């Protein structure tokens, strides 16, 4: 196998792994990147939004060559019942700016491109290689990995665990526990292919403009979960995910949930006549701040989904992943340039950088949200959607009933369904949001 020692071994070629590998390689560090899949991205699944700001900090001119689908100019939030949806949306032509803020991406193409950039900076990529075990020295410091390839272990001063939400390596080495069932969501997703013109007509977009729909409500059958519809160039990603703990207790299967979502009268016209070319499933870290494990130790750091770096409230993942990968790399580089060892004390710099950045600040801001979503799931995903929908139907339907009566009915419905819980819900939501 490879004899010489690396400055760093990066486990995984997803957002965080590529960000770390690229940053370290471009600083001249000797980096080995291990990817268990046939190619970077073959094992990665995402709804698929890339946050340009974070990538600019790594590859400023990425827009020229990176495989990007559509730049996002509209965001829709749907509150759905079985037959209806009440939506809020925001569309801004300014997002057509010279350096657009957000793109939809297709992970298999994007990750392959991102990893190639790291290789061009000198990182060595080894695909079809699964890291099985961390190797430690006498003082329990991590000094390398053993993989499922023949030949001995590979050594490095530090191992960057960017192995994704499941992250067997870290768990087997007891660096962190297996994620709890209520700290991850199981999402299933289909890629619906349609001609670009059809997508642009159905979403009122001009060439390479894109749009995002986030949906919540009765589509998750009372479970804590959300659906999504993202527009790519010639395909639409349609998916839905719920907390695994809820899923386990609920009788519906993920595919039934997805098919119901696809058949909803508001969704069906968007994907009518499409050809499905892939059906994927993945876990999404939803535990938030309280589920973030110890992120560094002697000879190792954790970044990306493996560290639960996902802002479930705003549905932001790739920005936290890329930033944590970049910050891990910068910390490692600074320690290297000070010619110091990768001790836990030194690697604390990585955590400090994270704390100072939006990554930990945002996660801490919403630290109570996962619990709230979980405990009042029935209210948030069943009762309120129905109430809101009935209120809107009441408002819009013209049936000779006076507006005053209609308003009284709506208030009565809310009070009957939630009573004083209304105020409690509002306060809890406000507190969890602040």
């Amino acid at each position, binding site marked *: 196998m490879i004899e010489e020692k690396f400055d760093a071994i990066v486990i995984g070629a997803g957002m965080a792994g590529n960000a770390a590998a690229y940053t370290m390689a471009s600083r001249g560090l000797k980096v080995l990147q291990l990817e268990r899949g046939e190619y970077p991205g073959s094992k990665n699944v995402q709804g698929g939004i890339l946050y340009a700001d974070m990538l600019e900090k790594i590859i400023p001119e990425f827009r020229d060559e990176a495989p990007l689908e559509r730049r996002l100019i509209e965001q829709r939030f749907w509150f759905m019942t079985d037959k209806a949806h009440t939506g809020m949306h925001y569309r801004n032509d300014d997002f057509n700016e010279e350096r657009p803020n957000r793109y939809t991406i297709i992970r298999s193409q994007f990750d392959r491109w991102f990893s190639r950039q790291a290789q061009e900076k000198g990182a060595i990529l080894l695909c079809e290689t699964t890291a099985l075990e961390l190797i430690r020295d006498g003082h329990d410091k991590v000094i390398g990995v053993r993989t499922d390839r023949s030949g001995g272990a590979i050594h490095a001063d530090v191992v960057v665990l960017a192995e994704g939400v499941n992250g067997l390596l870290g768990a087997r080495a007891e660096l962190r526990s297996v994620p709890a069932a209520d700290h991850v969501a199981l999402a299933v997703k289909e890629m619906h292919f349609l001609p670009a013109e059809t997508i642009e007509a159905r979403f009122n977009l001009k060439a390479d403009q894109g749009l995002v729909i986030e949906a919540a409500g009765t589509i998750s059958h009372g479970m804590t979960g959300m659906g999504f519809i993202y527009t790519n160039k010639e*395909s639409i990603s349609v998916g839905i995910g719920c907390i*695994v703990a809820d899923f386990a207790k609920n009788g519906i*299967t993920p595919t039934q949930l997805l098919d119901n979502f696809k058949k909803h009268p508001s969704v069906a016209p968007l994907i009518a006549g499409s050809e*499905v070319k892939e059906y994927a499933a993945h876990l999404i870290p939803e535990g938030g701040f309280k589920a973030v494990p110890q992120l560094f130790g002697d000879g190792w750091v954790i970044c990306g989904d493996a560290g639960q770096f996902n802002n479930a409230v705003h549905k932001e993942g790739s920005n936290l992943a890329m930033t944590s990968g970049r910050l891990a790399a910068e910390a490692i580089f600074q320690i290297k340039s000070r010619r110091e060892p990768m001790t836990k004390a030194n690697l604390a710099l990585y955590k400090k950088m994270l704390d100072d950045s939006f990554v930990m600040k945002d996660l801490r801001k919403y630290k109570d949200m996962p619990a709230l979503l979980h405990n009042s799931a029935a209210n948030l995903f069943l009762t309120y959607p129905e109430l809101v929908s009935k209120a809107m139907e009441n408002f819009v339907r013209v049936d000779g009933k006076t507006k005053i009566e209609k308003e009284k009915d709506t208030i009565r419905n809310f009070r009957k369904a939630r009573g004083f819980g209304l105020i409690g819900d509002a306060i809890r939501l406000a507190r969890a949001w602040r």
Partner: protein
Amino acid sequence: MGIEPQFQKVEEKLFQNRYLVDSGQPHIKVMPHDKPSKNLLAMTHLCPAGCYSQAENGQVELTADGCLECGTCRILCEPAGEITWEYPRGGYGILFKFG
């Protein structure tokens, strides 16, 4: 019209996907059990690829070929040792064309 099959069968969905099956070396194994636990039973409806099913004798069985490697069964069943969960050998298993 007859009741149109309510849901598309999972197999039809997986049909489109690309796999490199590591035949003979399933990466997930269900430990022998006399009565399947609640979590293991839950997998029979929860597994997005429909790999888990309950045989007549009540045992929960697994055919891991169509596995999407999402890790849900690991979350629910590994802690109590009901299954062992590994990644497939390097390069094997699901190969997302898009992801």
